[in-house]
């Protein structure tokens, strides 16, 4: 099996543009905090609708989409760009082609995504779920996606390392899918397909953002960092390929499960349910690989913060992908659809799994990018436990609220809608507490990274030899 030895490469030349990756991640940190703050503020409005007064820019609907786009595109996508600029050179053995284009991508993404976010508060939502940025933001976003995708393709074409590792599969496919998907969902669908067809394709777009952008990026990170951190070879390459093809085959069909029992063709809905069930396959192949690769290295859980986040993310991934397929079933949808249950599920995937894996990767590469060791292990610990406890509180209350409201609305008769709101209002209050803890955890993380870059202990020989990146 092919071997990429970082040491072997780095002695010859440094392939990663560290400044570029650092910049991208710093910008992601800003949106991690601002995006999560948007979430907490929105959450407070559930219990105190008059909170923040009657300012149109801070109205519930606007803050709510500000939160979603802030974390999905501001935080995760920016971090994924940075990670791609780290992983692609490492895995191909060469620098990115057209180095200046990388800066064009990172700078223009920073500007465009900020404009997108502000335009949401200003009231220019496009009305496309998970694609609310207005059309004049969507055009440059599509161009940036196309640019970085092309750049990755040409880098891979010129690669020194012959073997294409599974992370590269996920990266190239994820970028290609997302470029097409973004154009389809934001520029074509809202203007050319009406009503029911529009809804079906929008479900397809929405779930492809999760399944064909966030999932492949997160999985690419997991497959990259898991072997280099544990220094174990990936348990099974074949399994990783089965996972990849399973994802490619089943994920795009699932979109219509967001609109079950709607006027969308029943057979489309049924295919969506079936392929949602089949997603167990690619997910569990990733998990099997993760557990297999950890073999003999479980002791690292107690000492390595990146392993903690990686394993925690994997645990949440198991739950996500058991929950997802079962909740796509019609009998389950009848109760939990339209409730907070689904909101909990969305957070489980985006926050519980992929954000955790991104953090694991950042903890690992940050010393390499800055030449300094992580500033404070204590803060890392706070980050981990605040995130875990905060998220556990939030997820459990959302699922509880979903079952209570769904049960009242669909299983009982003569219940006024407002009574279901009153019934789950205490859940919302607890959810705000959980969300605040999550945000505090993220703040610990960002502060820790900032201080690392500024005053962290310099990386020494021991540290370097301990952290060679070897993909076996």
């Amino acid at each position, binding site marked *: 099996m092919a071997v990429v030895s970082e040491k072997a490469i780095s002695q010859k030349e440094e392939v990663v543009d560290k400044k570029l990756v650092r910049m991208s991640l710093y910008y992601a940190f800003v949106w991690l905090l601002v995006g999560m703050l948007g979430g907490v503020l929105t959450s407070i409005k559930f219990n105190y609708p008059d909170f923040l007064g009657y300012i149109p820019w801070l109205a519930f609907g606007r803050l709510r989409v500000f939160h979603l786009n802030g974390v999905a595109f501001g935080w995760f996508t920016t971090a994924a760009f940075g990670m791609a600029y780290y992983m692609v050179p490492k895995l191909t053995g060469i620098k990115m082609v057209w180095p200046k284009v990388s800066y064009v991508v990172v700078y223009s993404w920073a500007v465009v995504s900020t404009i997108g976010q502000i335009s949401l508060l200003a009231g220019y939502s496009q009305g496309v779920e998970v694609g609310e940025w207005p059309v004049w933001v969507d055009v440059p976003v599509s161009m940036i996606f196309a640019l970085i995708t092309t750049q990755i393709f040409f880098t891979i074409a010129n690669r020194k390392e012959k073997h294409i590792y599974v992370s590269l599969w996920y990266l190239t496919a994820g970028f290609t899918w997302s470029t097409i998907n973004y154009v389809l969902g934001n520029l074509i669908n809202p203007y050319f397909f009406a009503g029911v067809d529009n809804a079906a394709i929008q479900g397809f777009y929405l779930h492809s953002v999760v399944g064909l952008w966030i999932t492949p990026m997160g999985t690419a990170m997991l497959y990259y960092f898991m072997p280099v951190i544990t220094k174990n070879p990936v348990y099974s390459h074949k399994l990783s390929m089965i996972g990849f093809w399973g994802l490619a085959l089943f994920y795009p069909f699932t979109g219509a499960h967001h609109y079950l029992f709607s*006027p969308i063709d029943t057979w489309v809905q049924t295919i969506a349910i079936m392929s949602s069930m089949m997603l167990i396959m690619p997910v569990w192949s990733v998990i099997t690989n993760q557990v297999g690769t950890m073999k003999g290295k479980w002791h690292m859980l107690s000492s390595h913060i990146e392993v903690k986040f990686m394993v925690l993310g994997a645990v949440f991934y198991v739950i996500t992908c058991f929950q997802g397929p079962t909740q796509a079933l019609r009998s389950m949808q009848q109760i939990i659809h*339209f409730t907070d249950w689904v909101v909990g599920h969305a957070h489980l995937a985006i926050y519980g799994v992929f954000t955790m894996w991104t953090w694991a990767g950042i903890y690992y590469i940050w010393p390499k990018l800055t030449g300094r060791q992580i500033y404070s292990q204590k803060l890392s610990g706070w980050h981990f436990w605040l995130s875990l406890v905060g998220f556990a509180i939030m997820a459990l209350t959302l699922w509880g609220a979903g079952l209570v409201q769904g049960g009242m609305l669909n299983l009982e008769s003569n219940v006024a*809608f407002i009574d279901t709101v009153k019934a789950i209002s205490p859940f919302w209050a607890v959810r705000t507490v959980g969300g605040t803890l999550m945000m505090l955890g993220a703040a610990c993380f960002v502060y820790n990274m900032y201080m690392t870059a500024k005053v962290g202990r310099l990386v020494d020989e021991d540290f370097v030899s301990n952290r060679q990146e070897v993909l076996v």
Partner: protein
Amino acid sequence: MSNVTTSFKGAMLGAGVGLYFFAFFVGYAYPAFFSKHDVPKVKDYKGNIVAVRGYTEQEKLGKAIYIRENCWICHSQFVRPIGGDEKRYGPVSQAGEYAYDFPHTFGTRRIGPDLAREGGKRTDGWQYGHLANPQAMTQGSIMPKFVWYFEKKEDGEADITRPTEEGKALISYIQRLGTSIGDWRNPEGEKAAGSTVAASAPTFTPQMVKEGKVVFEGNCAGCHGLAGNGQGPAAAALNPKPRNFTEGKFKYPVNAKDSDLFKTLEIGVKGSAMPAWKDSLSEAQRWAVISYVRTFKK
């Protein structure tokens, strides 16, 4: 670099992207072109196929505001044929009703109730009062106060009798929702919906009055006022005005029996902002609130 393996890998990646298009064409583009969802025709509540009319300019503006404020985050727009949906909101949604929607506003979460059949449920006046101050109409509502769709009074408060053009447009859009199937709430040639059996009033107890006070303050005070004098926060926008209970007079019959009031609660008052309460208040709650309303008479 161009060797057999590379081109094979390239082909494989092409296949990966191809799977995306495969799913798109099978599951989404094919039905979009062949299922005729975009034909603006629906079955009305009587079973006839009728044409759906396009949006007026005002309704278009209203929909744009609906999207600007992301109303669809909290209000879905399709009635499912399951659960409590039909009973709570009305007839199941049909594909043709959405034929003019670019983009659609189905929504995926009901933080508030579904709006697919909201049109005609309340009067415009009620909607204005509610838009400016939802908590006055429904105690415990968490909907924001959209005061920026109203002109300001001298004291800076929103004047619910003077909505802006955008506010009017938004309500005109809401009033149009779900009306393509005809006036299903008031079927032609049939007796008004409601129970045919005359309900007989139970004996009122102090306990019932107490319960009725809670129901009244939660659901009725927005229009009828806490004091029952018809001067609630939303009253200014309503025509006809809400009933003043302190006079103890009721329009029909003038000396209404409790069972008449019960019926009013059940089916609402046509042409006024008084909605039907049969799906949101239980029978016991309705009797309780009547017992409380009776206490206002001086």
